[in-house]
């Protein structure tokens, strides 16, 4: 199972490294998002309170949706997802392999977005790197766990491009709330770690529930 997931992850990374298409376009889109929001919300050179945290997470969510769509579009070409399902390994291993690929992509984007947002909005995001990493990782995992499942489900559906956000955004509302609130708490002049800890715990609980549910439902959802 782990071997299969690793094989798929390695294959995805190999394919991506060849052209870097998804990496570049997702990154560019995320940066454009940040700028868009900056122009929309910044007044007299200052973002609204907690604006930096919100903008960061919205950019991650939008860029993530784009990356999910593109990743599974690749599997739709030549119907390779079917070929993966035909392999004798446990099918949830396919889900895990894809999930790890998406997380790697999003973490890469976050590595650029965090300094960018900190720079543009004078937000001291890097003040507590350990906590920020915890928030970003648990939030990204939550978002990606649902996103990977839904994207895989939609590969053979009609209107898949528009249905992904329709399905994904209502379900990931708690992830966004927790992510933004925790990040905003980190940006306060006197940080209350208790608040941050609460949100991270909530995110971790959510990750466990969503991952378990996804692993459980992947096979019935992908087969006819």
């Amino acid at each position, binding site marked *: 199972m782990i071997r299969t997931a690793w094989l798929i992850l390695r294959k995805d990374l190999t394919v991506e490294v060849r052209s870097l298409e998804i990496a570049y376009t997702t990154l560019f889109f995320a940066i454009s998002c940040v700028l868009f929001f900056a122009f929309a919300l910044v007044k007299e050179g200052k973002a609204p309170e907690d604006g930096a945290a919100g903008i960061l997470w919205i950019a991650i969510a939008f860029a993530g949706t784009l990356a999910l769509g593109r990743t599974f579009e690749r599997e739709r070409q030549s119907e390779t997802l079917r070929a993966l399902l035909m392999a004798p390994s446990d099918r949830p291993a396919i889900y895990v392999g894809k999930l790890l690929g998406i997380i790697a992509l999003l973490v890469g984007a976050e590595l650029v977005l965090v300094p960018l947002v900190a720079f543009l909005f004078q937000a001291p995001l890097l003040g507590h790197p350990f906590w920020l990493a915890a928030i970003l990782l648990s939030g990204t995992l939550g978002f990606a766990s649902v996103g990977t*499942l839904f994207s895989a489900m939609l590969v053979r559906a009609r*209107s898949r491009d528009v249905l992904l956000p329709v399905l994904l955004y209502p379900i990931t509302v*708690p992830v966004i709330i927790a992510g933004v609130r925790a990040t905003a708490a980190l940006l306060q002049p006197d940080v209350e770690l208790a608040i941050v800890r609460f949100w991270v715990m909530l995110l971790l609980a959510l990750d466990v529930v969503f991952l378990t549910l996804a692993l459980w439902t992947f096979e019935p*959802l992908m087969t006819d």
Partner: protein
Amino acid sequence: MPKWFTPAAIVCALMFAVSPFLIANAPYEATMGLVQKIFYYHLPSAWVFLLSAIICGIASARFLFGGSPRQDRLAHAAAELTVLFGAIVLVTGPLWARKAWGVWWQWDVRLTSSFMGWMVAWAYLLVRKYGGPGSDKLAAGLALFGMANVPFVYISVNYWRTIHPATSVVPTLPVDMGVALWFAVACFLLLFVLLLRMRVRLEEQRAKLDALYLSLDE
């Protein structure tokens, strides 16, 4: 339609005709006066909305893991009723809030969580309509995640909201409004059962029609 349907429908209509009188005679609530009376329809709608969502979630799980088309029909019908009763909740809620506290929307935790649940039910219907073949399973998966999400939505919205302190607090369930309330609850529950039965029957008829077409093809 089963035998009990028409008599039940008549009873339901009569009950709804009677309920405004019961509501008018109920005691006035201390702070809000007449406006509070919208609660007699708002609360039962909320309960039916929740019940419908739970039925949709459970039927979806049974469909996904058991494959029974009956469960799929039930889930679809329940999702539609979730959207319907959710709409009633989301309209009566702000109407009450506007008159009672002067604002349409207060980010109250229950109303906001209901809004999110309503969005998921709506997304379910969109998937079924536009998803093409196989959309029944996709929608079932969505319903499962929606159900699993409920505690997280509630906790996160609740904690989030305390950061925006509100100038008013929605009262907790007042249990002393007695007769009018429980009568209204009975009305709404009966209406829900009738609508559910009717909607499931529509799907059953569609399935029978498909089976007839198939056997024609022999």
